[in-house]
């Protein structure tokens, strides 16, 4: 029965459909072909998260492609969520990549606008942004549900070939902390309307603002239509917290949290403690379906966080 209602049948989709409180992680591909790094990161995440996002040249720095690394995760038994940004590819390349990703067995895709190339290691590159993230969601949803490409043609080989379209579970991001604040909920509503199945939010540190945004989402009925996973990144140190607060647009960290880190005997342990408290608090909120845990270059602390948050063992999904 369940299978007939599922869009992609991915593990993430099944768990969310079952009402489990899900946990996704994040894995940034290496900047070289030192593949052992991927094995190490997988070992830290496998069994502790239900799926892991694989980033697509995040902060516009060249890395192994998200689809290639997603396939490596799949082969290692960790379900991937392949991120696709609009910065580097036009609608032709993106749709081709999505067909390719599906062919390799990937079933979850997260649709992002992408960081501007001036932040990365190729600031003189030409950017694309042929689509924006909302258009990307719509294009992939229409590929899945209407079985049509963005150009209007059906997804079939020749006139007589069967209609065989990629069945993808579609994610999107939401940032409740950027401006204009009033627009943030409109943008979430547009992502729902475009066809996103789940949302992973920007890192939550400012709980009051986050809960204000979530209330708006509930009032508009959006939490009924989409699964929202709240973003968590443990703070490693006071300098990291200050960097995130001052340099990363759209991340808001209350001073009280930074004070807590500064006064702690060991800031990194305090950072983990804060992350655990945040997870436990978020779990109680109406409209939160899970956590997106982004332990940036700190994957080895993920098992500890998940355990302390009381989220072990992770649920099992029958093949």
């Amino acid at each position, binding site marked *: 029965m369940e299978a007939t209602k599922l869009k992609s049948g991915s593990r993430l989709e099944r768990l969310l459909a079952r009402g489990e409180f899900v946990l996704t992680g994040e894995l940034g591909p290496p900047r070289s072909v030192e593949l052992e790094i991927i094995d190490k990161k997988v070992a830290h995440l496998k069994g502790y998260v239900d799926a892991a996002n694989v980033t697509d040249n995040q902060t516009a720095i060249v890395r192994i492609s998200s689809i290639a690394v997603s396939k490596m995760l799949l082969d290692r038994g960790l379900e991937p969520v392949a991120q696709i940004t*609009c*910065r580097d590819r036009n*609608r032709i390349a993106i749709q081709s990549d999505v067909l390719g990703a599906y062919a390799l067995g990937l079933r979850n895709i997260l649709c992002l*606008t*992408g960081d*501007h190339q*001036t932040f990365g290691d190729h600031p003189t590159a030409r*950017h694309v*942004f*042929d*689509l*924006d*993230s*909302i*258009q990307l969601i*719509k*294009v992939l949803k229409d590929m899945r549900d209407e079985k049509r490409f*963005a150009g209007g043609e059906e997804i079939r080989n020749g006139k007589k070939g069967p209609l065989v379209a990629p069945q993808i579970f579609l994610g999107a*991001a939401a*940032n409740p*902390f*950027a*401006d*204009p604040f*009033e*627009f943030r909920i*409109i*943008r979430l*509503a*547009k992502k729902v*309307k*475009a066809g996103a199945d789940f949302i992973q939010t*920007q890192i939550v540190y400012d709980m009051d603002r986050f809960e204000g945004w979530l209330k708006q989402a509930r009032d508009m009925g959006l939490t009924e239509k989409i699964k929202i996973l709240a973003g968590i990144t443990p703070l490693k140190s006071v300098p990291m917290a200050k960097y995130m607060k001052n340099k990363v*647009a*759209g991340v808001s960290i209350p001073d009280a949290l930074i004070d807590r880190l500064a006064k702690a005997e060991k800031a990194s342990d305090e950072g983990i403690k804060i992350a655990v408290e945040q997870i436990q608090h978020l779990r109680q909120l109406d409209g939160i379906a899970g956590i997106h845990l982004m332990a940036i270059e700190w994957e080895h602390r993920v098992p500890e966080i998940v355990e302390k948050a009381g989220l072990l063992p992770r649920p099992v999904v029958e093949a």
Partner: protein
Amino acid sequence: MITAEQKPLEEIQQMLAGVDKLLILGCGTCVTVCLAGGEKEVATLADLLRLKGSIDQITEATIERQCDQEFFEEVTRKIEDADAVLSLACGAGVQLLARIFPEKCVYPGVNTRFIGLVEEQGKWLESCLACGDCKLGKFGGVCPIARCSKSLLNGPCGGSIDGKCEVDPETIDCAWQLIYDRLAKLGQLENLTEIEEPNDFSTAHDGRPRRLDRADMHL
């Protein structure tokens, strides 16, 4: 208007290596207004190059518009007398000059920048990408294609903070903050709830080098 700025003197000198008789040709329209290639700039550049002393003979002229063939008539003689012409017009003007005088070496003296407007004295702001399908009516008179760093059509990315764009918060306003504020004032925020479909870029340069063909004006 079309904005431009003069190339560095060293680059101009390198381009002109080996030229003995040079005409510096200014343009009286956009580049005059943005103080990059009008009569005054022609005179200043000529003086600077004379001081450097590597070119024997430098003449100066400025015509009303280098993007219009008829204005070249008055300087035909000067162009023919020179080995090379350094045009201070925009890229369109330089190309028309090269087309009218196929035997003449022509060099650009300015970098054409963008279609923009004056923000304050000495500051210009890119305002139109000439995409060929104007959407300003829907967006409260602020163009997201020209003024958003990512040309987003469905609202701001996560990099909009305090009305500024994360790409450079010192100098770039978030176009989507401007659009939001303007539509709020006009009572037209509902414009922003509809999903903007993938843009049709065939009317922009992506389609092909563009032409305008007005049958009603043909002779």
